[in-house]
């Protein structure tokens, strides 16, 4: 009897394969959905995907520390490698495939010209420690992006080196600590205020720097409660960390009063720039009294999200914080660009160094290509379209879903789960059902201040027809959920994705973080088994 080749073997204790509505196939594949083993289950000694010349025999100069024994890396040929990763790629949802309304992540179109220019040899193939005389164009490129970022934010300085948004937060908060130290106030100002709705990185950053994080409440309109903020301010407060537009997708309408109050209390205003896409070209954070703000180039300026990075998080700084920007500084001396590195005399007191070399150059290049493509007019239009699209989605769904706050919203529409009350369907179930409809779900259960939160950020990149289809699909799901008979159906979703719901509890309770021979298929490679 020919046994099934199904490579999707489970782990001990796995639930039985019951419940699949479609009949099993011999291979376990389903047309374009191809089951793919791990590379460690595919390799054969003697196969290799590169051809390298025979190394000349030389006397080892390895201090007697030559590596013994097998490393254990599998051997695959080039076509196998291409097939393996191509099959894996087909198990991913992506911006290139459709609506990806992941709130607070700004999943906008990633233009391919960005990729092309980042790969020009004169940009992508440069060593970071070449003599500066040989990288004048690269330094000019970084400064061009810096100029755009400063102008768009209305801020006098920018630190380019942080590697991601959270790293930028660290940079900005260190700059605040440095400014406090210079005033002799670091020891007494130990409190950082942050709204309960803040991104998790905000309290994590503040705590890492030894600050005590104190939450500030929101008012009924989803904004910072100004009176509560004022009473929380005092001589022991170092800074406020505030996202604007905030994580509920709303513009902080009392932002100027907030920044005034913060400054009057001798504290600084850190702005989380994750949501800058909503206002770029229309509002300059510098006009709001911001002291520093990181900019996620992978959100607002379209550098690819890449399955979770790499990002880039330049931080714009006010005149009060600019002197503390970390090394390196890129400065112009006469006609030539130069890099002021650790210890070099600059017009300030750098807080140190946060990253090797000069920052995420590859991301700078892509962001600048995006910015130049859009120009001042296009960036403003993009922000307006992003806000328009979010408001359109909210307006078209507000009679069947429940917006958490009164509109208008900015670039993202926040719903709570009260429309699902008594249906037996949770936010999670609803999101998983969206997968079967061909959509990546919105951000779920964030911000924490809204029950069962659903944060929808369509971005400016979707055509109206695609938004209309998305809206229609969402309306159909709400109707099904409210029918009162579909809860089981929702709980079983998704059905048509490469995998159905995964057991996250099992993963955390018995962590398997790497392949070992013992967790490969019972009896070895199934293909080989079948051949025998």
């Amino acid at each position, binding site marked *: 009897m020919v046994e099934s080749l199904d490579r999707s073997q489970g782990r001990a204790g796995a639930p039985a394969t019951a419940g699949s509505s479609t009949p099993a196939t011999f291979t376990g594949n389903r047309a374009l959905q191809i089951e793919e083993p791990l590379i460690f289950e595919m390799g054969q000694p003697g196969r290799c995907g*590169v051809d390298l010349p025979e190394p000349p025999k030389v006397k080892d100069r390895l201090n007697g520390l030559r590596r013994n024994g097998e490393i254990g890396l599998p051997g695959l040929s080039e076509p196998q490698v291409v097939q393996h990763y191509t099959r894996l790629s087909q198990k991913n949802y992506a911006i290139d495939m459709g609506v990806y309304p992941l709130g607070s992540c700004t999943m906008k179109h990633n233009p391919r010209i960005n990729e092309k220019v980042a790969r020009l040899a004169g940009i992508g193939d440069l060593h970071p420690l070449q003599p500066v005389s040989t990288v004048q164009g690269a330094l000019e490129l970084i400064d061009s992006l810096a100029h755009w970022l400063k102008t768009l934010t209305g801020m006098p300085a920018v630190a380019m080196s942080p590697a991601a948004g959270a790293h930028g937060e660290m940079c900005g908060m260190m700059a605040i600590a440095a400014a406090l130290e210079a005033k002799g106030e670091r020891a007494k100002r130990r409190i950082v205020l942050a709204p309960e709705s803040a991104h998790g990185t905000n309290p994590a950053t503040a705590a890492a720097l030894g600050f005590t994080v104190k939450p500030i409440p929101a008012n009924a309109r989803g904004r910072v409660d100004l009176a509560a903020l004022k009473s929380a301010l005092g001589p022991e407060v170092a800074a406020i960390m505030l996202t604007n537009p905030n994580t509920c997708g709303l513009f902080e309408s009392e932002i100027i009063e907030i920044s005034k109050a913060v400054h009057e209390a001798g504290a600084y205003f850190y702005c989380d720039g994750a949501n800058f896409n909503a206002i770029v070209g229309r509002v300059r954070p510098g006009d709001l009294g911001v002291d520093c703000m990181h900019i996620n180039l992978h959100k607002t300026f379209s550098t690819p999200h890449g399955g979770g990075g790499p990002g880039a998080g330049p931080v714009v700084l006010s005149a009060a914080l600019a002197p503390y920007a970390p090394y390196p500084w890129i400065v112009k001396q006469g006609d030539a660009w130069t890099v002021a590195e650790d210890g070099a005399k600059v017009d300030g007191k750098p807080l140190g160094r946060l990253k090797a070399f000069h920052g995420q150059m590859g991301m700078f290049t892509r962001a600048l290509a995006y910015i130049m493509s859009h120009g001042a007019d296009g960036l403003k239009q993009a922000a307006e379209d992003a806000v328009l699209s979010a408001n359109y989605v909210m307006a078209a769904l507000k009679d069947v879903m429940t917006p958490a706050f009164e509109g208008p919203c900015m670039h993202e529409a926040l719903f709570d789960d009260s429309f699902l009350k008594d249906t037996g369907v949770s936010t999670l179930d609803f999101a998983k059902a969206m997968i079967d409809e061909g959509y990546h779900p919105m951000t779920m259960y964030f911000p924490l201040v809204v029950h069962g939160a659903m944060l929808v950020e369509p971005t400016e990149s979707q055509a109206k027809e695609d938004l209309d289809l998305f809206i229609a699909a969402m309306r159909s799901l709400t109707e099904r959920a409210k029918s009162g008979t579909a809860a089981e159906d929702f709980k079983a979703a998704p059905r048509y994705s490469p995998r159905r719901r995964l057991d996250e509890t099992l993963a955390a309770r018995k962590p398997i973080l790497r392949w070992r021979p013992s967790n490969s298929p019972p009896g070895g490679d199934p293909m080989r088994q079948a051949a025998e």
Partner: protein
Amino acid sequence: MRYLPLTEQDRREMLAVIGAKSVDELFRDVPQSARLPGKIAGLPDHQGELEVERAFQAFAAKNISPSAAPSFIGAGAYRHHVPSTVDYMIQRGEFLTSYTPYQPEITQGTLQYLFEFQTQITLLTGMEVANASMYDGSTGTSEAVLMANRVTRRHKALISGGLHPHYRRIIETTARWEGFSTVIGKADVEGLEDLIASIDKETSCVVVQNPSFFGHVRDFTKLAAACHAAGALLIVVVTEVVSLGLIMPPGEMGADIVVCEGQSIGNGLGFGGPYVGLFATREKYMRQMPGRLVGETVDADGKRGFVLTLSTREQHIRREKATSNICTNAGLCALAFTVHLTLLGEAGFRRLAELNHAKASELADRVSAVPGVQLVNESFFNEFTVRLPKPAVPVVEALAARRILGGLPVSRLIPDDLSVANLLLLAATETSTEHGMGPLVSALKEVL
């Protein structure tokens, strides 16, 4: 504008559904004083793809790329050949334009390659568990020190003088603002540093690099034992990950945390970033690790699948109690790394390492035969230090004027130590050829 699908007609219809007269109404929460009257002044308007590409070609033309000039610069970033398959794979939209795999049912591609990546890292380093990547080796090293502080509940890090100076400065910056102390070794030019006597009861960790910044290959077995006897952790940093194809892995020496810069595999020089940090440790410290972790599980049909796991360490759950504020990692650079390493496999990776060592041996012999040049290293992998008869900075400038990127003057990274002024750090890889080494040697003879 080519990136914006909405037409004027669309916009009007959408505003009508919203019930707003103009888009300005949607921005009514912006305080009057912060509303800009028109677009921001002094910035150019949108441009076509052709114009943008020309602008970048103009930037590129003002640089000298190692693709067009012999280069011997390493110091934490190495120029290797990256197979075409790697760059093709990372440009597939399903990888390039996906995000952190929060919805595992539709991101198994990312999750599986990260699981494979984590396994590859444990094998290379000889460690038990690895995470799904850090921003890069330099920031990963600083995170390793913070992790050691958490594990040991101590607050003093002992830093080798053989650690890359940028890495050292990042630790010092972190120490200054996050509140722990550091003891920094003197620049370990000769590779003879012994840190054992400096370990005490307050030491949380010892941070060393192998091969060291100056290129020496060191055995840290005794140092590891001394760390453990004192209750401290040994952190081993590897900035040239190809070396692990030839050199005993840190795990075998007794390292507790290993951090590597993974750029050499799959990722180009890129003027310093983005790169990919590799981070591995012992299983017992797993829950103190920073960064994302991918774990194996099953789905509702009992099929094997992968998810982000142990996220109770992370900022989005633990907030101010998180092990790190890290959120994004270096997903796409990790993909480039894992695709390249899969192409290489056991045989290819070992051969690549052998080739690098052979090229560097040849370079060392030829350069040290130049009158006045003295090879400092007895041991090295693909990078070594030479002492010149005069300061290295003007020598490197003179070489650059001859379109040769002739290594790194150590004083660029260690400007405060006059004893390193004449030192030059030189690297060779499989990309180095006679067409590069020959001109370097003759040019050195001219300028020295």
